[in-house]
């Protein structure tokens, strides 16, 4: 009997330990102009705080936090849209710096030393003075001094941004087109040299309004288009950055929206989407698992499966207002959010990597953006120093959670994640 109890206890401890590997920061957007954006912190299978930023800093994060990324070992960046603030925090939640030089900021990406921010605004404060733009722009923040060191004008209302091979890939939306008289929806992906911050090329996809979440899996981007909500139906795109840099045909369009999407551990995309039309007032809900390389190879005839692992598809379909999806790049655990009625608290759902629903947790208003922290609980806990065996490892990622597939991409002295552990590439 004693043996059985001991086994049970050990098993419980093991499970507890496994779950403790999950550390997720969730941005709750709050309500527009109510200054009630918040951060929820999920650990050990439960929400430990729904006001994590307030707890750590004694102040509010601001109005409508819209994106969050890990910049490097010690730094996380958060775009707080309506507050016009890019807030920098340490992984323990304490604030480091904040800048309002980039008004109406939207989405972020980083190479560890610089943070690149898309903005719907028309001016930006840089170390060289104020820069003005007719359309939208991308700003480059140097995290050594949190100043904007360069900008580049792209399309109207640029949204998603990703970094690949030293180039920034920016999905332009023209999202203000329904209200503004002087432009229509955008159809381009802008390619910007991250080092020089110059626009190299606009890839015209022919697809309007590339708005929504944009996920990256190595060379592949998953881009959403909600259409114009009237005549042009929504759709999704798989974009190949590698081919785009070579000037080859680089994207495939398919007839499913991918409103919220995320990258899986094996480099695919999970997406949920809704096709909505103001003409009919109706929507069609869909779930997708996307294998980007197959989609590109077969021109979209294969590689799209209308399913998600386990019970995820039905769980999302039963939500009041799905508002986000995310896969923990360290562990493969899956997360989704339900914004509920937008007046009350939203919920965070957690699934196992196989899609088994593990629980749902009350968070705050409009939870929609996620960042996983390393599972071992130590930001600086590098398990393997100087490894040379990173590229093409089935579970190797950079700190932004992108699979690492090519040795040529790797930089010496940079930390990658291999088998869920931080690894320094050096040898």
């Amino acid at each position: 009997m004693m043996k059985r109890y001991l086994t049970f206890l050990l098993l419980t401890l093991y499970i507890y330990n496994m779950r403790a590997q999950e550390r997720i920061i969730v941005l709750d957007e709050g309500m527009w102009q109510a200054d009630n954006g918040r951060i929820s912190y999920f650990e050990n299978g439960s929400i430990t705080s729904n006001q994590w930023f307030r707890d750590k800093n004694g102040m509010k994060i601001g109005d409508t936090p819209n994106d969050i990324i890990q910049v490097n070992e010690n730094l996380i960046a958060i775009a707080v849209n309506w507050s016009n603030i890019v807030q920098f925090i340490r992984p323990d939640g304490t604030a480091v710096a904040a800048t309002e030089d980039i008004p109406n900021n939207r989405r972020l990406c980083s190479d560890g030393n610089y943070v690149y921010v898309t903005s719907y605004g028309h001016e930006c404060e840089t170390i060289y003075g104020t820069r003005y733009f007719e359309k939208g722009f991308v700003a480059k923040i140097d995290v050594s001094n949190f100043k904007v060191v360069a900008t580049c004008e792209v399309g109207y209302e640029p949204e998603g941004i990703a970094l690949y091979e030293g180039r920034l890939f920016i999905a332009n939306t023209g999202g203000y087109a329904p209200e503004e008289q002087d432009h229509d929806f955008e159809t381009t992906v802008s390619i910007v040299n991250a080092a020089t911050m110059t626009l190299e090329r606009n890839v015209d996809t022919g697809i309007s309004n590339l708005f929504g979440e944009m996920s990256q899996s190595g060379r592949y981007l998953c881009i959403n288009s909600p259409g114009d909500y009237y005549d042009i139906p929504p759709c999704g795109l798989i974009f190949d950055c590698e081919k785009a840099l070579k000037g080859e045909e680089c994207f495939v369009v398919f007839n499913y929206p991918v409103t919220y999407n995320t990258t899986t551990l094996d480099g695919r995309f999970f997406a949920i989407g809704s096709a909505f039309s103001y003409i009919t007032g109706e929507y069609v809900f869909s779930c997708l698992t996307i294998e980007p390389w197959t989609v590109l190879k077969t021109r979209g005839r294969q590689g799209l499966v209308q399913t998600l692992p386990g019970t995820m598809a039905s769980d999302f379909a039963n939500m009041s207002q799905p508002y986000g999806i995310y896969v923990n790049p360290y562990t493969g655990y899956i997360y989704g959010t339900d914004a509920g009625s937008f007046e009350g608290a939203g919920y965070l759902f957690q699934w196992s990597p196989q899609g088994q629903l593990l629980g749902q947790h009350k968070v705050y208003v409009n939870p929609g953006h996620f960042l996983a922290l390393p599972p071992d609980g130590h930001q600086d806990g590098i398990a393997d120093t100087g490894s040379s065996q990173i590229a093409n490892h089935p579970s190797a990622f950079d700190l932004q959670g992108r699979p690492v597939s090519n040795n040529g991409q790797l930089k010496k002295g940079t930390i990658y994640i291999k088998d869920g552990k931080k690894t320094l590439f050096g040898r």
Partner: protein
Amino acid sequence: MTHYYLQAILAIVLALAVTAGASAQNPDPQASQLPTAGERTDSIKQLHEVTVAAKQPVRTIATSQTLSGADLQALSTTSVADALKYFSGVQIKDYGGLGGLKTINVRSLGAQHVGVYVDGIRLTNAQNGTVDLGKFSLSSMESVSLYNANKLDNCQSASEYASGATVYLQTKRPTSDSLSVQLRNASFFTWMAKLNAQFNWKGWQGFVDGEYCSSRGDYPFRYHSQYEDTVGHRANSDIRYVRAEAALFRGGFSSHVYYYGSERGCPGGIVRRLSDKYTNVGREWDRDFFVQASYKEHFLKWLVFKANAKYANEYLRYNTKYPENQNTARVDNHFRQQDAYGALCVSFLPWSWLSLSSSYDIRYSILRADLKRFDDVKRVDQKLVFAAQMNWHDIQAAVSALHQRYSDWTFVQAGAADPLDRWTPAVSLAYTLYGVTLRGWYKEIFRAPTLNDLYYTQAGNRNLKPEYTKQFNIGLEYHWISRNNSMANGQWAVDIQADVYWNRIENRIVCLPMKGTYTWSMMNYGETFCRGLNATLKGHYRTGQWNFSLLNSITWQRDVDRTDPSDEDMYDKPICYSPAFSTGLTAIAGWRTLQFTTSYLYVGERMWSKADPEDILEPYHNIDMKLSYTHNIKKTSLGLCLEVCDVLDIQYEHIPRYPMPGRNYKLTLSFGI
């Protein structure tokens, strides 16, 4: 349905023809009973009509509150909204400052269920369905009344039955010739000048009232909590407006012309910012104009006829093309609305204790806007009511059936909404015993989706259903006036009323994102249930040259969500912005022409989101004081008035992050002949 309305119109027109013929042969027999027989009959009839209204026996059947005459003038008010906040059951939504949108919500029905009427004709806004009460001044008003459900006069237009609650603004009918000028200086660089001229000449009465005001509106505010200590001055909160009104009355005829033009800043919510560099600048220009006329006539002993007509023209420009605005789309939109309205009402009084009435209203609205993907929208709104009222011994009863039909025409891409066709009933019953009236009523009414709800670019939903309300009320009312006629020994008057109520709103029209998209759209979503108690107490005492008044109102209510029983976080939880308890107390003391008023308002805690118990608007106490003195020299008068609002400098808000001004002062100098 067209035939149906044609028949209704024909019936009413036929009745009018009969009554007109009868009137020509039979002058009003009561006219000869009045001493002013030498005057023209129409003016005599008017006097008679006023007398009847004063004794209106069915008045107590309606749940109503009125502020009029001296009580109204004694309050510290700049607009109609300021007066209404002292009524029981009223919640004010105010975005702060002189230019902030001010709407009222009665018994938690929502602002769009409150009809606002000037001399019995509704102020409408087909575009958004709400009336900004900040645009209406009290200086030309005789009284402000709030009726829950129906007013219940015996000759009402169908529109007057068509809202959940009704606010009546009764224009002042001058009794003498006068001219007055007012100058005001108030806090936050506010200047105002007002001119009022009145005349009463050979049975004609009229007035012209004009006002110009300019305010910088940069009031200070402070947010102090565990997580912030924000201080600042409200930016982009300035306003300049001009208001001009004129009215003309004669007997049963009344008319009113109104113009309001303004330019104002539209400040956003106070959110975390690192500096004041980027304010969300938007500016708004309004030009509202209406002209209306009403004619009411009694024929024989048993027929009353009323006709209303109105034309309204509203223009609104909203511009966000400013460098300080980096956060929203840059637009310069223009909206133009026109409204033509006509109503015919006939009331038949077969016995002195019974009245049967019918009214047909038609309103034609057109909305033009230079929004993308928008086209002109035209709406014809027809209403027909059949009503009966009885006042037999101590029993009073009223019943009405209202039919509404809305038809829209537009070339917006989604197409026009299907016509809306509904009957809704209302029934009231009252019994008076030993001076105490016990009453009960039930009313069903809906609000039709507004043109914005249905057609606004990137939000409108043509498939919306109307938002339904069902109200049930039981109350009692008691009036007492001292029989002592000697002013030296003092005269007392006391009014007490209390009502308990239940109401339910179904198919609420709200703006929500459709499932799984970022796209917001109007939807029918949700159901609420509210129960509460409204009570008012009024006491007046006069002795010699002193007079004292005490006005008290109390509201207790529980307003809960009944949308989804499986949603534990929301179901049966309080509705946002709905306080459980609020009360107002006003004390007025006057000696000759010196008057001192203190008003106290308490509004309890309100949730503004259901996500966290911390998401509350703190309760607030608001004390206003007003001291005025008028010095009369022969026919001229010179007045001075000092008002201190929010004496305790309480920082409060109606909408989260939209602070209200703290303590502020107004000094008014007036001169009249």
